[in-house]
């Protein structure tokens, strides 16, 4: 990495089912202003804006980045939109980081959002072209068979998913921005919630949320002056692969493994479970935490579920995962990846309030999208790399 990059400002909206109190420009503006306030900067200090969201069809606005230019202070500046399906919040930040590490810009604002209340993502994900039959609706229909495969391969107990969901939903109660904060959540409530796409229950699924997340990035000398110490970028990585090909392992995709390996190489990580303090990863359906623990190299193959059983991934465990409550608790799709990054960066900046992991020095942010085929990740550190 040629130049160092630090996260100096983080801003999130309150995530909610329907933010009908604001327009789409108003929504992204809210996150952008909070990130600037955190960094003690204004739009005038920003050199370029990189924004991301999931498919245009979710809100029915073509080229929304152009429509939002004045709301995010991009007038007269480079404005770039990134799109990599559900992983877009992560890849958007990665692109923005590259504008700093490459030396092109000094300070970059990056943000991502979704306003799901304007449409219906289940519809948006289930438009079938001519000559075909829609066999399942929505992301759950696609991912449920992969989870069934994982259960068969790993022999994981059937209640693994419930335990993961309970852990994330308890964490969400500590996060004021979380969309779903279910005060009386417990194991039985999740276990008895309706089965949607067997083996995925209602309370093991992510909600549909409106929301935006923003981060201000700065080059090394400017980041060092930030009012709150910066989260330093130790590495970023992206990989993708086709949805289907002969020999594809769609439960433990090679693209995700390669991205993690590349990230750890950049960051000088040899034993990720030991050297990384916590991880905020993209888990839209509870079981994916166990699957991604393996894909990211935190657990041996077919043993990711054991980390859940041992309590390792709980907020007070030795490897906390999804401290914010995760995608299970807030899912503004296009923003979801960046929210993961923001939480990881907040952890190393000691900004995470009640969901702070004591002494977090290195934290992973992770996102995936499509049919488990796009991966983006970033490692943040309290100290410079």
């Amino acid at each position, binding site marked *: 990495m040629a130049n160092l990059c630090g996260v100096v400002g983080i801003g999130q909206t309150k995530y909610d089912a329907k933010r009908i109190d604001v*327009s789409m420009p108003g929504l992204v503006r809210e996150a952008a202003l909070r990130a600037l306030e955190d960094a003690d900067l204004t739009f005038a200090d920003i050199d370029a804006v990189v924004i991301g969201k999931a498919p245009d069809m979710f809100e029915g606005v073509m080229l929304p980045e152009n429509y939002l230019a004045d709301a995010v202070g991009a*007038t007269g500046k480079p404005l770039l939109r990134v799109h990599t399906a559900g992983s877009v919040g992560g890849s958007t930040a990665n692109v923005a980081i590259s504008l700093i590490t490459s030396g092109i810009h000094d300070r970059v604002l990056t943000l991502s959002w979704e306003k799901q209340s304007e*449409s219906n993502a289940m519809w948006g994900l289930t438009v079938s072209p001519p000559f075909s039959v829609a066999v399942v609706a929505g992301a759950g229909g696609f991912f449920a068979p992969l989870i069934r495969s994982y259960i068969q391969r790993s022999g994981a107990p059937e209640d693994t998913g419930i335990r993961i969901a309970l852990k994330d939903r308890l964490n969400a109660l500590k996060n004021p921005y979380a969309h779903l904060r279910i005060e009386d959540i417990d194991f039985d409530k999740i276990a008895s919630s309706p089965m949607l796409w067997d083996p995925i229950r209602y309370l093991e699924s992510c909600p549909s949320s409106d929301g935006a997340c923003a981060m201000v990035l700065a080059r090394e000398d400017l980041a060092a002056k930030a009012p709150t110490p910066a989260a330093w970028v130790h590495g970023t990585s992206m990989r993708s692969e086709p949805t289907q090909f002969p020999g594809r392992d769609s439960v433990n995709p090679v693209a995700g493994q390669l991205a993690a390996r590349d990230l750890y190489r950049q960051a000088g990580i040899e034993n990720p479970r030991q050297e990384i303090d916590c991880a905020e990863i993209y888990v839209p359906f509870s079981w994916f935490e166990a699957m991604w623990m393996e894909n990211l190299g935190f657990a041996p193959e077919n043993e990711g579920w054991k980390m859940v059983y041992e309590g390792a991934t709980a907020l007070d465990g030795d490897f906390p995962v999804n401290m914010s409550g995760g995608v299970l608790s807030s899912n503004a799709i296009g923003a979801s990846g960046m929210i993961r990054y923001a939480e990881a960066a907040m952890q190393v900046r000691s900004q995470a309030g009640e969901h702070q992991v004591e002494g977090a020095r290195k934290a992973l942010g992770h996102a995936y999208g499509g049919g488990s085929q796009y991966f983006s990740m970033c490692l943040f550190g309290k100290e410079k790399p």
Partner: protein
Amino acid sequence: MIALRVRQDAPPVEPIVAVRRSAPTHGGPMRRLTMEKVMAQTLAADEVLRGPHVLEYPYRRSLGPVLGRFFGGLQEHRLLGIRMRSGKVLVPPQEYDPQTGEALEEFVDVGPGGEIVSWSWVSKPRPKQPLDRPFAFALIRLDGADTTLLHAVDAGEESKLSVGARVTPRWAEEPGGGILDIACFELEG
């Protein structure tokens, strides 16, 4: 590059090179549809299946404080703009100053009349367009505004249009919420 796991014990299968076109709607002689032919782009256009693919959704747009007032105004037959930092008036109003990015809040009544700044004649209207007879899409600068509003002008024939021609809104009989609460503009006088 990617480590592959390919099943080695797949049962042997015989390739076939011809596919019979037997469906009633695609009658005619049997054709050879090898992929070589396909990839060499020798497959006639009428040999490739085509079909309509319609994507349709009634998006519900949250308006926020500024456009909410603008569309509310249309239902009261009022046209609102908003004043920029520079003093210029934007119509339709926007939440943030396109020059400075500041939040805007000073509403200004504009119109209802205005003048045509430019237009494009639509001689064969399409089904979802505002009028079912030939009309113009025009950029209209409403009185008091510094920007233009795009809308339909029902002028009957193109020869009646000119830059600077005065127009006035024709309000929808039943406001439904949206820019078509102005049914269209028409020439004054």
